[in-house]
């Protein structure tokens, strides 16, 4: 039994989502008495992959991510490795590739899973549905069983292995798409998808300019800026920041919500955060039902005070 993990490399290092997928992949392989192997587009990842327990690293020379060339390369790697389980971190590329690959291989796939176990020769996965209003446990039959892992759901844990053995994979490089340009978002903007800490603003901010209070705090803490749907729909902030049912479902370690009342769609998108702090002037706001620490008060005075306090704490 072999577990193959699709890995993405950024600046010569494995992305967090890939390290998380390798970590849970290793546990599955150990439970089944099998091996963990990895796939990447850069042989420089062999050291990193080994540290997370991968014995081999299948390397494609296909260059940057492209749906079709990577589907072909992964198909080849899965064949060479005789992979029983294929995991992909739930990044944009992982989520783009997994379904294409599953259709190519007539295989079962579960998206955005936050628990995985190998029982009786089958992969069982738990995944949020209805944006986290419920959880479905699914069983995948057939080989390979494919899953994309939810970011922040599995801790990244090194196992201290030696560098993975590099194995080249060659596959068709035909594609009907090409990337002609990549536009990077404003400098310093962290994506809510991968953030450990998110500071979110809601309608209580009253106007677009007041998102500066959220940005200042996020910047001081080193977190990402989130937003409620109301603020996005009002045009105060870009949709990429939206948390909730028609935005991103997130589960950071710490979620701070200021001026967010907590509509059901928003709660669904963030209630699996590990620690939740809410600041709202309405003591009856639904957000307080799920907050670990609720502060009933005026965000316009509390946020600046909090930003100062965080800066002080960081300076120590």
């Amino acid at each position: 039994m072999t577990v193959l993990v699709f890995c993405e490399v950024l600046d010569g290092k494995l992305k967090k989502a890939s390290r998380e997928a390798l970590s849970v992949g290793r546990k599955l392989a150990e439970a089944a008495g099998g091996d963990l192997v990895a796939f990447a587009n850069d042989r420089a990842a062999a050291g990193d992959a080994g540290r997370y327990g991968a014995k081999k690293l299948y390397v494609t020379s296909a260059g940057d991510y492209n749906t079709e060339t990577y589907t072909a390369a992964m198909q080849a790697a899965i064949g060479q490795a005789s992979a029983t389980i294929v995991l992909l971190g739930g990044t944009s590329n992982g989520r783009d590739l997994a379904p294409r690959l599953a259709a190519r291989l007539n295989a079962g796939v579960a998206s955005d899973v936050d628990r995985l176990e190998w029982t009786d020769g089958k992969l069982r996965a738990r995944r949020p549905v209805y944006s986290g209003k419920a959880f479905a446990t699914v069983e995948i039959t057939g080989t390979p069983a494919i899953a994309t892992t939810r970011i922040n759901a599995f801790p990244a844990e090194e196992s201290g292995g030696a560098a993975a053995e590099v194995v080249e994979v060659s596959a068709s490089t035909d594609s009907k798409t090409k990337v002609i340009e990549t536009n990077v978002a404003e400098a310093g903007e962290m994506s809510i998808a991968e953030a450990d800490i998110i500071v979110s603003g809601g309608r209580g901010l009253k106007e677009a300019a007041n998102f500066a209070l959220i940005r200042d705090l996020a910047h001081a803490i080193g977190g990402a800026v989130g937003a409620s749907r109301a603020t996005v729909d009002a045009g105060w902030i870009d949709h990429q920041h939206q948390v909730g049912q028609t935005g991103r479902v997130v589960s950071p370690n710490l979620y701070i919500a200021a001026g967010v009342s907590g509509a059901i769609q928003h709660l669904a998108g963030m209630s699996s955060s590990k620690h939740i702090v809410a600041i709202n002037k309405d003591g009856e706001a639904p957000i307080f039902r799920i907050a670990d620490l609720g502060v009933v008060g005026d965000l316009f005075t509390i946020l600046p005070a909090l930003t100062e306090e965080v800066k002080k704490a960081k300076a120590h």
Partner: protein
Amino acid sequence: MNSVVCIAQVPDTETRIKIGGDGRHIDENGLKYIVSPYDEYALEEAIRLKEKLGGDVTVLGFGPDRVQQSLRESLARGATKALHVKGESGDADSLGIAKVLAAAIKTVPHDLVFFGKQGVGTDNSLVGPMVAELLGYPQVNVVTHLEVAEGKVTAHREIEGAEEVIEAATPAVITAQKGMNEPRYASLKGIMAAKKVAIETKSIADLGLADSDIVNQRVTVVSLELPPEKSGGRKIDGADPAAAAKEIVRYMKEEAKAL
């Protein structure tokens, strides 16, 4: 320019989800269904292309009879044709659904196939790319902007902290992200006109498929559960901002270990 827009019918996002008696499905009693929100962006984009370049917009839905209502709503907004593949989609896995849709799409002339980037329900984000693979088409996922030229499209794809501008040969599959456009509401005229359009109906067998091709083939839901009820934590008075800030920082350090 002919487009097919695949729509998923999902429970209204306001809905509180209840688990059905079998512990594997949601309780559909009293549920209100809507067109999945991302599909509205897909439909709007196809309608705009039709208005600019001519051609047809066919809305395609797979599922029980209630799907017809969503198809009718889509016609009222500006789709010109509708195709309903009748069948119990509830126990089909994503690849099963994709096989049905791919077979149905082949029966309709098209240059582009649109989906929402995910169905706001089972939240799989799988069917669009699967259909692309089954049809041998390129895909561009999570698209916020689309331009169409002869034989190709240029699409802006949202990724973490950046956007990619991707050129794809047509026919192609595009999955729509919020922000792609501002979907219109149906006009009274549109609603009246939609009533006159006959919705074409096909069965799975008409498409050369059997239930056994699509139901519980690869992925089976074993159980469905509600998340554990959060009890709510401590609530403090924030009348003194400095004191509140100190308490939040203490919480961040000691309990969340986030500083």
